[in-house]
């Protein structure tokens, strides 16, 4: 199999994703649909939470994807800084909006899920707060990309921002937990995935998780292709002006 560095050349990446993208897109629709339908229609109500437990099929995958998207952007930024691998820089840029939306979904579903228990639409629960902070980091990252016109300077600056931002995102997450000791609430309702959830829920949960991963991959591939085309257009126009 050709090595990962072969894909530095956008041409090869475009050829490969020509057939890969439709496959992943179709798979993402199918898997996510089955996961959500299975979770929504065919799971019993939880004896304590009632039907709100059905929200975990949205919240947990979205929350995981929000974090994994940032990790993917971090890795892509490192690959760009170390190896000047164009496609990874553009993939990082393409991944940011998906991460942003996943964070939004995680925030909204988390707030709605906690609402019956906290009695309010928004409670400064440390987990939700750290997603709110992650949302700000995504916003800053996308805004920085948009503000810079030279693509390579943009890739470099956003890569550095991603590296520094990751450290501060982790610190902020810790700070949010430290800061919320005042607001103590039962740990039973844990938003963390994979806690004492019996099998009837775990199965659809894993399915919708993989569905969300596929959605992320499909959108990133599509986004990267668009970024490559935009870069190609910019290069052609630059060459035209130079001629």
């Amino acid at each position, binding site marked *: 199999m050709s090595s990962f560095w072969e894909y530095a050349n956008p041409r090869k990446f475009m050829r490969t994703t020509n057939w890969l993208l439709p496959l992943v897109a179709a798979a993402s629709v199918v898997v996510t649909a089955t996961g959500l339908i299975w979770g929504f229609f065919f799971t019993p109500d939880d004896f304590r939470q009632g039907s709100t437990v059905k929200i975990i099929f949205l919240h947990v995958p979205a929350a995981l994807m929000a974090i994994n998207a940032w990790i993917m952007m971090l890795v892509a930024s490192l690959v760009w800084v170390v190896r000047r691998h164009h496609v990874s820089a553009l993939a990082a840029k393409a991944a940011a909006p998906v991460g942003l939306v996943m964070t939004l979904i995680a925030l909204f579903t988390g707030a709605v899920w906690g609402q019956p228990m906290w009695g309010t639409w928004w409670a400064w629960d440390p987990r939700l707060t750290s997603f709110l902070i992650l949302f700000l980091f995504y916003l800053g990252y996308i805004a920085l990309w948009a503000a810079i016109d030279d693509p390579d300077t943009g890739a470099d600056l956003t890569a550095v921002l991603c590296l520094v931002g990751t450290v501060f995102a982790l610190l902020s997450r810790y700070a949010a937990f430290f800061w919320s000791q005042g607001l103590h609430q039962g740990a039973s309702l844990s938003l963390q995935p994979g806690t004492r959830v019996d099998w009837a829920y775990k199965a659809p949960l894993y399915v919708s998780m993989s569905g969300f991963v596929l959605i992320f991959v499909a959108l990133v591939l599509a986004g990267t292709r668009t970024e490559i085309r935009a870069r190609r257009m910019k290069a052609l126009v630059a060459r*035209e002006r130079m001629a």
Partner: protein
Amino acid sequence: MIPDLGRYASEVLSAYVVSLALLAGVVAWYWLRARAVRSQLDQVEQRQERTE
């Protein structure tokens, strides 16, 4: 066919509706941008072919 969602029906439904709307929104955004950039690129490429 809709399961009895009990007391929190509105919460569960709103969570699903909003989430799916957000997902549809981001997919649409990627799709529209892809189409716009592709058409601009084709335009530039045709212009280049004519001048070469």
